[in-house]
């Protein structure tokens, strides 16, 4: 398959990724069936991104063969990407998942998410952070998008 990211994008990303502070681990869950139209593309996209910076590590799993890992991270469908930070030997799971290919506008969101997870910073308002830190019940946010 031809490269998904062209030279200009690779150059831009290598500049952006210089600001990575902690290594980011992208857990990618694929499946054995052939219904997954974009699995191969997502897999390639992640490998191309990881090739730009040694601070980005991709771990690929076939969900049928890695059910314990999938359960641990709460992944039930594919293609799935879980964005984690690495601290020493441990993975820090922020419960951030991408289902389907992060292309078009979502590509930018995906890159911003990698940077955020690495640097551990958000630009949320103080009031929002206080509200979130005070949450007693779980909140599950599913943001539906379409490729643009």
């Amino acid at each position, binding site marked *: 398959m031809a490269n998904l990211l062209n030279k200009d994008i690779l150059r831009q990303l290598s500049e952006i990724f210089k600001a990575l502070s902690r290594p980011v681990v992208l857990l990618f869950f694929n499946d054995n069936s052939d219904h997954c139209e974009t699995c191969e593309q997502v897999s390639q996209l992640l490998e191309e991104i990881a090739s730009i910076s040694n601070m980005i590590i991709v771990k690929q799993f076939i969900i049928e063969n890695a059910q314990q890992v999938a359960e641990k991270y709460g992944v039930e469908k594919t293609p799935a990407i879980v964005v984690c930070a690495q601290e020493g030997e441990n993975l820090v799971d922020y419960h951030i998942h991408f*289902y389907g290919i992060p292309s078009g506008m979502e590509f930018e969101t995906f890159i911003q998410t990698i940077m955020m997870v690495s640097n551990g910073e958000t630009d949320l308002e103080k009031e929002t952070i206080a509200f979130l830190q005070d949450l007693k019940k779980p909140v599950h946010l599913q943001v539906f*998008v379409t490729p643009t």
Partner: protein
Amino acid sequence: MLAFQMAMVSDKVHAEMVQAREFPELSDQFHVHGVPHTNINQGKGEAIGAIPEADLVHEIEAALKN
């Protein structure tokens, strides 16, 4: 991006991006027509369009009361 920032701040928040066309059943289940469409706690609440941060907080608060 807002949803992911929230997940970063709180362990209680799980955030997902879902490509609607790749997951049509899930999109139908939550009546996704326009995007972005943020579903809160399996249909307890929703936010349609790219809404401001304070509005999403408000929608989450309301969904938690449902």
